[in-house]
């Protein structure tokens, strides 16, 4: 299943500057695994923490969450709190 993944600015240099990429993944865990394999430069970001917005809902930890084919998928920095 191919999904369109939108990237925040810091990740774009690792994919040649593209705003979004097409990825074969069904869950957040699979998405991160594919991104780490295909774009090694993303691995440090994923290890530090990347949040995934699925139709506007922000997931920071639940890597089992499914990625619907028609959903808007956005990768975002993991924002801290105070």
């Amino acid at each position, binding site marked *: 299943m191919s999904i369109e993944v*939108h990237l*925040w*600015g*810091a990740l774009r*240099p690792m994919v040649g500057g593209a705003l979004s990429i097409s990825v074969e993944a069904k869950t957040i865990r699979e998405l991160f695994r594919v991104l780490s394999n295909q774009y090694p430069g993303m691995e440090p970001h994923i290890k*530090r923490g990347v949040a995934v*917005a699925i*139709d*506007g*809902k*922000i*997931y*920071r*930890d*639940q890597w089992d*969450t499914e990625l619907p084919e028609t959903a*808007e998928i*956005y990768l*975002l*920095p993991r*924002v*801290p*709190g*105070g």
Partner: protein
Amino acid sequence: MSMDADLVTKKFKVIGTRVARPDGIDKVTGRARFGADATMPGQLVALVLRSPHPHAIIKKIDISKAEKLVGVKAVITSADLPDYTNGDRGMLDILENCMARHKVYYDGHAVAAVAAVDVTTARAALKLIKVDYQILPHVTHVDDALKADSPLLHTHIVTQGASPEATEPSNYNKYAEYGHGNIELGFKDADVIIERSYKTEQTHQGYIEPHSCLASVSPDGAAEMWVCTQGHFVYRNQCATLLGLDANKLRVTASEIGGGFGGKTHIWAEPLALALSRKANRPVKLTMSREEVFRCTGPTSATSINVKIGAKKDGTVTAAFAELRYTSGCFPSNWAEFGAMTAWACYDFKNVKSVSKDAVSNRPKTAAYRAPSAPMAAFAIENAMDEIAKAIGMDPLELRIKNAAKEGTKSSYGPVYGPIGIGPTLEAAKNHPHMKAPLAKNTGRGVACGFWFNFGGQTCVDLNVTPDGTTTVAVGTMDVGGSRASLALAVAEELGVAYKDVRVIVADTSSLGHNDMTDGSRGTFSSSMAAIFAARNAITVMRQKAAKTWEIPLDDIVWEDGHAKATGASHGNLAPLSIKDIAGNAGATGGPIAGHSEIVADNAGVSFGTHIADCHVDPETGQTKITRYTVIQDAGKAMHPSYVEGQYQGGAAQGIGWALNEEYVYGANGRLQNPAFLDYRIPVCSDLPFIDTQILEIPNPHHPYGVRGVGETPIVPPLAAVSIAVTNATGVRMTHIPMSPPRILKAIKTHRG
């Protein structure tokens, strides 16, 4: 994790009531134990030697005389804290911040620490430590730190995200950008364009309780620590890493907390206390002075922000741009980037862009402060909204309503919004009596919005029913803002018992699985969710015990009003079993009654608020008096309305202090000039009016009761709301926070020419 959508609209029995807080009596009578109240037999007193220089190489440290002083049991330097971080640069930065290794990066940076039998001996020992410094040029202001010829702090920092790619080291550690559309085309469509620059000074969270910990490391490597923190599990993990301990060997107990607001999400002195205890083989207590708290813990960023906004005369904003420059103190972070993400998040603009530049400087390492980075961004953005509204002759509140983000809006940080609450807070502000109240002479009114990302995180709850049928709940998320009361209400609601029959404690790190710290407005949101699930699991256990007692199928038993009740015609004569009945017979029905929940409470939902401020400005002195203040925010469901109101009021009070008085003042020598509450003035009761609140309850579909986090968003709008009110009172746009009387007088005089 299951969600029962029906509960979002259910009628509650105890949720939403204003019960007495469980920690209230202990706190007002002095019985509550804060960080510095922990004691152990034979404990030593620790003091830290700190650099008087903002930037210097440590050529040599001689501790020999201090070690020989009678009563001194241990002296440590960075040599006693070897690098166990295994290439993790972020952890090494934390270690280096706790104790300087080769260089000092700010006034107050720790260079050595002593543990002695009493404070007099410890003070004498500090004087015997000789440090040979090679003083280096320093930089404290963010715009100076970004200059190419700025004194370089670190040789390993090369700007991330810059285009073209940076290759040389600098203090400029990160560039990022967010937005969509084409702002150049958008500005061409504008009838009016406003450009302005803003500055905010560095502020401290100002928690009343200084950092304190008591550490005890045994020769076998097992260790205990009692500490004031927002996250004892995170402290446990980080200290274990830095000390080279297995995490299970370090048991950390959190004390009551006298305020944190983000400043107690980082470790500062705890590794030093542990290292001293390990070296001395005695318990060691390390309590910071107020001066140390200001100089050596983590304030928020000082910022410099440029904003450009264009609009048509009908109020359509055609383009919006902001460049945000934040200092992270002496170690790199992303604070400006988080400001860029939040900057325009309240609005629905076709063309919007924000860029961020993070820089290191010779200031203490910046820490989170309640909705970190968002208040400064909101200050600049909301002033720009106010100014352009006036330029096109439109009411600023109407401009915000016209351009407010809504479900389906593409947010300025990327994703499309689902259902959100900015519109209802703006409409509530428009209809609030405050907006119609007359204003006295030299008084202005300001309205501003704010946005923050809430989150949930890893959370554990253990619920146990005692043999007498009362309930204890152990939670690992620190109670910073009243979560114990809310958890007790949630468990009482689920079990169908009285609030007084539920006692909630914060358990130590050896009692529960990992819990994230209390930040991101997650405390009540996530731990109440876990408590609800734990209670439901315990109900299942109690139904099973009732089934055994009655020797009937489990499916024939329901739980209602604190009782197991048999259903169906064949069991109609069975008298309901209370929790007390079931608990008293627990041994004969399989053992103790417990319910557990270990969850990740993701998808907390974003948060919005709108504030209204009235400010009187004395034109002769420049002094500002807040005459009326109203906070409007969506709480989803207010489990304990008094605590929610307290969060709204507390955020507003902190934001007012930030707006009017609070400021780190550095001298030309790079030393902090005002590390005390006498010179760093936070608001006191007599400075503030009653802060009115309006709680909106738009249920969050991702919590069983509809709860949203409420702790951080209240500090986002005040800088903007107060500055706009002062602008309206004086007729001069206020662009520099804090608006202290001299700064206001200077602005008025400059404006008058």
